[in-house]
């Protein structure tokens, strides 16, 4: 049974704080799990390291993935998610400060579901987070679990 967790992959504590505020502002009640780098995000998803023992079938409802991350960057994380059968259908939204064309192109090539640039203006940022939550958690029908993953 999916718990509807929002997995936020973000190393900048300010941005973590602001995102959480945006979630709060948007009156989104889902639990937000924050991982601080790409490796930790993958540990969470595949129940390794600190997350050993977590129910691997309990996938997040949405992953908000920054690109600039220590150790393993967001694009590499996305590649891992898409290449692993268990997470290949997982909705991933790139949430980043840049709108560099090569980042956009690469994200979509790797199978990102959305690309959202974080605006400087917090009001706009909050609005974006609110709309993301509304879309991915309410409007959008989640993907069916991939074969062999069902408990």
């Amino acid at each position, binding site marked *: 049974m999916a718990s509807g967790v929002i997995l936020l992959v973000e190393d900048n504590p300010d941005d973590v*704080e602001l995102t959480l505020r945006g979630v709060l502002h948007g009156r989104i009640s889902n639990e937000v799990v924050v991982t601080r780098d790409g490796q930790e995000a993958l540990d969470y998803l595949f129940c390794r390291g600190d997350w050993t023992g977590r129910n691997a079938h309990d996938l997040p409802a949405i992953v908000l993935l920054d690109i600039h991350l220590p150790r393993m960057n967001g694009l590499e994380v996305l590649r891992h998610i898409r290449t692993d059968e268990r997470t290949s259908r997982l909705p991933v939204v790139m949430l980043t400060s840049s709108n560099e064309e090569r980042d956009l192109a690469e994200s979509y090539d790797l199978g990102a579901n959305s690309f959202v640039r974080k605006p400087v*203006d917090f009001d706009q940022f909050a609005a974006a987070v609110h709309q993301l939550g509304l879309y991915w958690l309410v409007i959008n029908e989640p993907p069916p679990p991939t074969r062999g993953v069902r408990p």
Partner: protein
Amino acid sequence: MRPSRIVAIYVLLVGVLFWVLDAAVESVVMGRGSFLSTLLTDIDPHDLWMRATVLALCGLLGGLLAWHMRRWEQGLKVTGELLRESEERYRGLYESMSEGVAFHELVHDGDGAAIDYRIVDVNPTFETILGIPRGNAVGRLGSELYGADEAPLLDVYAEVVTSGRLTTLETYQEALDRDFHISAFRTPAGGFATVFEDISDRRRAEEELLQRTHDLGKRVKEIRCLYQVARLSGDHGRTLNDVLQDIADVLPVSWQWPEIASAQIEFSDALFQAGTTEGVPVAAQSAEIVVRGETVGRVTVRYHAERAEEDGGPFLTEEQDLIDTVARVIGDTVEHQQAEAERESLARFPSENPSPVLRAREDGAVVYANAAAAALLHKLGSGVGRPAPTEWLEPVGKAMRSGTLRRIEVTIAHQTLILNVAPVSKQGYATIYGMDVTERRAAERALLEIEQRYRTVFENTGAATCLIGAEGTIILANEGFAQLASASREEIEGKLAFLGLCAPHEQERLAAYHYSRRKPEIDAPKRYEFDFVNRDGEVRRVFMHIDMILGTQTSVASLVDVTELRRTQTELQALTEELEERVQRRTTELRAANEELEAFAYSISHDLRAPLRSIDGFSKAVLDDYAECLDETGKSHLDRVRLASQRMGDLIDDILQLSKITRVEMRVDRVDMSALALEIIEELRAVEPERSVEVVIEADMIVDADRRLLEVALRNLLGNAWKFTGRREQARIEFASKPDEDGRAVYCVTDNGAGFDMAYADKLFQPFQRLHRIDEFPGTGVGLATVRRVIRRHGGDVWAEGEVGKGAGFYFSFHDL
């Protein structure tokens, strides 16, 4: 001799005998002289008397006896039947007749029918004609005598016997192989006689005559044919083609079977036909038409139906002769006509000659002039029947006296002529053949000029030039070559070998070129460099251009001293290499810098915005969470912090875009600017739907450009126009094109907005330069700089015109794209 005459002569002889006996007695018995004297002269008168009496008595007695004998004989005739005399006459006739005569009697069978006849008698001519002796013939049957089953002509003879009518007939008897004319009549004895003649020879003669007559008929036909052919071919007033057609017409009727004959004459490429056209030819005979030993055609006669063969084919032997003769006559006619034509054309020779031909007597009078000569003489006031021009008289006289050809050259009104005076001394005149040499003389002059020109060119080639003969000797050298060789032209020309001026290590190669160049099948290089050694032993590097003079064994070589040039080139080469290396190094540095810049820009876009987000975000958090702890000033300060950080964010975005314009790779495409502008305006309207702006965009402004860059530029230009017309009630934006003085399109975005002061027009396109206060019109001052970069990357230019309070116009073009 009749018996009466014999008796009379006999008695007379007795008298003569008495005379002779008496003479003999006188001579011998009485010895009265010789016998002869006693016989005729020395006769005793007594004896003479006696002898004469005896002789007379004997004569009288003989006469009496003869008379009696005669009477007796006549008595016999009277009594010896007249019949016998008649029979004898007929017998004689019978015996001596030229016709054969035979008497026959019919042999009958038991029923009285004639079955044969028996020969009763035949005359000697019968024997002669049939070669059967009388003894063999008489008493034999006709059938057995003539060797046939049935006696010949038995029916005829039986009919003669029965009717008693004389019957004559001519018949051929096969058993005897003879023709006979037979008359048969009944004899009083009840038999029949035949009088016959062998007419075999006559019949043969008749047949021969008939044949002769027939042949003669044919000969007459042939002769008539030949006569007509000869007459036609002799008619010189007509064309050869007409003559040949007429001859063809004559031929079929001259042949044995005219109704099935056709004739055809092939001559050169022409064909002449006559006679029947019905049916397919089944037989043909032909003869070749030969003119001067060459076959030029053929006469053919064909029969279009079968006929009995005669003389070895449907054609007569004579007809082959005839066709041969006709072909020969045609050949002769053609030859004659050709000869005639030739003679005529020869006769026209002098008169048609375009060069002057004239004849002058020894005294100088002109007796003949052709058209060209007449025209010439006319110019000189002379003519036929008048004296030749004065200056011609001397050579004419000389030629006549010496009997040799004289030649003079005269120029008459720009025309130069050579006159060949050929004396015909025996007949007392000279023939003058003129030859127009005006053009030849002009050509000679031109040649001289060209020669002069080439000599000048040769001297002034600007290079060292020389001519090299087949043996390698320098034939001719110009001053430049003399200088290069460091020798005088006299020392060089005809004396110096070209190879003697080449460095030893070059000689083998250059000698090979020299010889192969003179062979048509081998190519030798025409341009090359080599080391030249002058007479002072100094080595110079020269570039040579060498080629053969067409149609000779001489080559022409032009040499340029490139010693200095080569040294300079070597230095230049070194410098170039160094420069290239430097450029390479710079390029590498530049590329590294560019990569660094790109990394920098990337980092800015990520890292510079993050703190701004924190500043703005947490200011907002303070305002939200601690609103009750802040007074209005505090809140206002925080608002300003937020505004500044947002502006900073915009600035970063614009700078990034500006840098991106120069970095991105161009992708040129057809772009419909009109449609693009319309899209941008729609977006602007969507953001500020409350504004009323009249926008006019010219249709179909299509350019070759990078779509993304052009969109950035248009977005800035139209965005500015939109922004600066924000305070106008009746805002108006126009995007249109117009041709410049060179006819190229200039595009412009004009508005009736705030405008600007032209004094600052040059600052407009520099980054971060603003002409309005931020609170009047927000902006970063990077937009127009971005526009200029876009246009310049397209090889174009952009400029602006404006007036404060009236509006602005931004112009751009893509001149060099």
